């Protein structure tokens, strides 16, 4: 790359020199990025082999679960720029659909999952079509009301037509037929890979949407809706499509949750706590970005679990105080989400590494 004395004539012009070294740097940085990415991919794929404790695995599965949920939330909460605060309702629709179908009719949960997704889209359209036109608080409140309203209804209904919902007592899934056909496993490892797969799918989808026309429309609609509409962009339709996608994928996670924890009841699945947590994680990580929600889940879930584990029994409620303080601090100092400062730190680190390699090559 850099020469010894005899070739120095080639590097005399500053501009040429800078060009060359900038290019060199970029190549080195790309290589570093690829290597790191490869390492992480290997680590993630091999994780279950490295961790023997099921509790750890359980916690990591939940982290991925939330990362998945927040990324699909991001489709409508980040890209479409609205604030859905009742998203757990779609989780519940997915969970109940697949569970009822499998318990009562023996239909495979995989199929039930798909049906649940479609039902969630229908529900999402019901709530979304009128309210996506409104911005801000109205949409947020509408989603909360819809979620709570549905929860109250499920809590009070034993049977919805021929389907047994069992009201507040919930539905328990007996761990009988183990195997992939039934989405039922005795160890946590297959669940790990399933949620990992789902997470990768949603990340790829998000990335694809961001680069597509839909993505353009959504950004335009978010930042300058009047201008976008003047240019002929159908902002409403774009938002509705984003909502549909988000609802569908959130419902898939509902089935996963049902099959993973083997017990669902209205307060635990269609819960405002879960809805809020999803939104907060996405906002703290940085909504609108692709990796923000995942980052949020990776950082915030351990905070919530750890503070409950270490402080939950000392002083009642202390862990929630800590969680609340963390939320406040992050939002005051980094309202765009933590992905911004973290990306900068990463860039600096990689730049230094790249410089290190280049200088090393000099010698």
């Amino acid at each position, binding site marked *: 790359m850099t020469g010894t004395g005899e070739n120095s004539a080639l590097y005399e012009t500053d501009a040429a020199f800078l060009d060359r070294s900038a290019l060199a740097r970029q190549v080195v940085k*790309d290589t*570093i*990025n690829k290597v*790191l*990415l490869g390492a*992480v991919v290997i*680590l*993630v794929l091999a994780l279950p082999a490295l961790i023997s*404790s*099921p*509790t*750890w695995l*359980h*916690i*990591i599965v939940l*982290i991925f679960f939330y990362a998945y949920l927040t990324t699909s939330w991001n489709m409508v909460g980040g*890209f479409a*720029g609205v604030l859905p605060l009742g998203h757990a309702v779609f989780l519940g629709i997915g969970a109940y659909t697949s569970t009822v179908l499998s318990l009562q009719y023996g239909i495979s949960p995989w199929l039930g999952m798909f049906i649940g997704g479609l039902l969630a889209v229908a529900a999402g359209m019901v709530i979304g079509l009128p309210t996506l036109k409104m911005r801000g608080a109205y949409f947020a409140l509408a989603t909360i009301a819809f979620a709570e309203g549905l929860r*109250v209804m499920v*809590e*009070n209904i034993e049977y919805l037509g021929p389907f047994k919902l069992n*009201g*507040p*007592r*919930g539905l*328990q899934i007996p*761990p009988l037929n183990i195997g992939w056909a039934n989405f039922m496993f005795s160890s946590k490892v297959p669940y790990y890979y399933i949620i990992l797969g789902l997470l990768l799918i949603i990340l790829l989808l998000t990335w694809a949407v*961001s*680069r597509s026309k839909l993505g353009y429309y*959504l*950004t335009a609609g*978010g*930042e300058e809706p009047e201008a976008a509409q003047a240019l002929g962009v159908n902002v409403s339709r774009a938002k509705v499509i984003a909502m549909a996608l988000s609802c569908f994928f959130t419902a898939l996670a509902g089935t996963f949750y049902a099959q993973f*924890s083997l*017990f669902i*009841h209205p*307060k*635990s699945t269609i*819960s405002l*706590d879960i809805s809020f947590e999803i939104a907060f994680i996405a906002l703290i990580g940085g909504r*609108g*970005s*692709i*990796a923000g929600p*995942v*980052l949020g889940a*990776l950082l915030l879930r*351990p905070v919530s679990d750890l503070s*409950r*584990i270490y402080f*939950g*029994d000392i002083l*009642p*409620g202390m*862990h929630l105080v800590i969680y609340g303080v963390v939320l406040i601090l992050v939002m005051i100092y980094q309202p*765009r989400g933590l*992905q911004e400062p*973290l990306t900068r730190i*990463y860039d600096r680190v*990689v730049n230094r590494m790249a410089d290190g390699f280049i200088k090393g090559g000099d010698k």
Partner: protein
Amino acid sequence: MHYFNIHKEEEMKFNRFWTVTAAAGLLISGLIFTGPATAGETTIKIGNIIPLSGPSASVGQQGKNAREMAVEEINAAGGIKSLGGAKLEMLYADSESKPEKGVSEAERLINTEKVNVLTGCWNSAVTYPTTAVAERYGVPFIVPVSVSDKITEQGFKNVFRIAAKDSWWTRDQFAFLKDMQAEYNTPVKKLAFVYENGDWGKGMAGQWKKLAAENGYEVVLDEPYPSTATDLSPVVQKIRRSRAEVLLLVSNAADAILLTNTLAEYKVRLKAIVATGGGHADPFFIKAVGKNAQYLFDIVEWETDINKPGAKETNEKYNARYGYNLTGEAVDAYVSMYVIKDALERAASFDKEAIRKALAETNLTSGPGMIVGYDAVQFDSSGQNSHASPVIVQINDVGNGLERITVWPKSARRAGYTPVFPKP
């Protein structure tokens, strides 16, 4: 607001960014989750999953206090002698009254903390799936309080419940009513059922309906209500207008207070009100409603004036420490510790299966734990304590301020007290 751009650079950013955050997150989690590994072999670890925050925090705390007191006594008396004086070590986990938290905490207590026994979880909805976790890992699980029938009907081998099943509670409530009608020559025909619309309330109400049909009562009101309601006057109005003679209630703490006060405000005439423990048995209930609670009947596991040796002293000790009396649920938590101690002594082992077997063979009839109203703790094949039996108390003032007085079964009635029925 939107800051994702669709340029090539961002594509790179996405790649490397996802990389670093994933790595960082896993690294952090990794460093932190190297929690405490193995249990020492000189203590028995007992994991307790109870609601320490959230709407049931009050009862969760009482359960914790009762356990603490029992364990202190046991350790002070030498621990488990057959295990060389091994002490009991208590770990508490907050379920926040949420099933998924109960399940995670059970997983953590079993796998990371390596507990030998679990107890919990007060809320039936949390106990139900959490016992499934214990069953999967073969860890014995003692349920002191949760009454939902199905907890011991899951076919599990590791679950042992101390309290009576809710079907026994309802059976005894109706038996009490029958006896009262006979004793006071006052027939009762019309019943009103008012209950919180959760798992507990609906379960009780289902059985009330069956029992009412079997005994020829007329149910003039069947009213589930949301426990978190801010105004219960519409419900009270319905009770008033239904012209019921006896009202049966299932309530949590806040709504018990609200209902009792509202019933008094609206001067609802009833021959008797029979509650089902829970909110009505909360130590703060009487203080919060005062005179409005007079003549109320309640069914509980235990009452402070029970005629058992040691009951009074234990209650005084508890009250001196914590500022309020033991309740039936607290006593269940208390005796559960002694049941564990007794089983450990017989098992003489740290092994889960040995402990489980010893628990299944329990026949505890004496000792500081046996301040309960019945004479023995014995678990049937489904894990249910077959001797558990509740008592009925009446709240009345016999000169010492309002207190709860045991009235039924007649054999357990406090000496010198005549229950007031019907309500004046």
